């Protein structure tokens, strides 16, 4: 018997600029989490995601495949860490999926799909949080910048 699956948990809509947004007390009753960001930032910068308040970005290696006006490029490796794809003033769309976020036997994998007008273009990114703790909070912010007023970020729980 199919189970109702996708449940909106929270939405944050900024009425003024803000350097970070955070979802706390995330329920542990789902299998995956999805964050949908329709955001702009004051300048074109990379974003950071801090999980459970952990700001040690060296535990967040990523692999990036990115297409823009200059062609398709890729970046990765053990020392390539610490940010998710870029935002700028044009209100791009980013989706993040946190698979098996309550598992205590796996590092957390984060699938990032991003579309921003401008030099960063469209991107797919696989990121890890190299910790086996269950995810209870997620904080997002543009590095050294602010999200614009009107930015909207939603959190969904996905049953499994």
């Amino acid at each position, binding site marked *: 018997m*199919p*189970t*109702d*699956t*996708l*449940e909106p948990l929270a939405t944050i809509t900024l009425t003024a600029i803000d350097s970070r947004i955070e979802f706390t007390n995330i329920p542990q009753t789902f*299998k*995956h989490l999805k964050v949908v960001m329709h955001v702009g930032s004051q300048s074109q910068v990379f974003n950071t995601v801090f999980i459970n308040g952990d700001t040690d970005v060296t535990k*967040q*290696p*990523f*692999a*990036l*495949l990115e297409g823009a006006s200059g062609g*398709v*490029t*890729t*970046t*990765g*490796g*053990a020392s*390539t*860490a610490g940010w998710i794809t870029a935002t700028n003033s044009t209100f791009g769309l980013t989706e993040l*999926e946190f*698979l*098996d976020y309550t*598992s205590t*036997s*796996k*590092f957390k*994998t*984060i*699938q990032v*799909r991003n579309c921003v007008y401008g030099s960063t273009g469209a991107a*797919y*990114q*696989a*990121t*890890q949080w*190299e910790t*086996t703790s269950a995810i209870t909070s997620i904080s997002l912010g543009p590095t050294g910048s602010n999200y614009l007023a009107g930015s909207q970020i939603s959190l969904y729980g*996905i*049953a*499994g």
Partner: protein
Amino acid sequence: MPNKSLSRSGLLTYQKYSSLLAGNNPYFPFSSDYALLASTELASPQAEVTFSNLGDFAADYDHLQIKASTRSVLTDGGVSGLYMRFNGEASGTNYWWHRLYGQNSVTVNGSSGDSLIVAGITVKSAAPANIFSGSVIDIFDAYDTSKKQVVRGFTGMAGATWYAGQHTGGWNSTSALSSITLLTDNNFTANCSFYLYGWKAS
């Protein structure tokens, strides 16, 4: 959502409402257009995972999606594939696939006649413990027998061994979909997890 307090409702103020909602916003019981159809998490190494009896969902769902966290028991370096077959067809050249991926450099390759679809990747056990590759794979119009099956996968992992890719593939058949089999080279490790979701038809 919070209900309005009794002090502002008709019980204490004798205010009359023409609606049973009495000034409250309507509550819509949650109804998802996106539903979990099946899932499994491996308790021990296993060569493949099959979601079967998929015809049971044909009346209610248009598109299917698989989310998978996978790791291979193979201990040599690099990554293995996350392969897909339909309806148990394991031989011949009836599948095609292509991929655009980054792994040290950008590569595009594929096959137009294969015995499986390379729908994603599976990290091997040479990677540090607890690392699993992640894949999200969509199967569009899965039950439309006027179209051949087409899939798209976003797949990757990070660290010393890294990979970020978009895969596409298909099955040269218009047969009604009955099963999906996921496999890798050798076995999946314990704790690999597989979830099958359906997007409801309008």
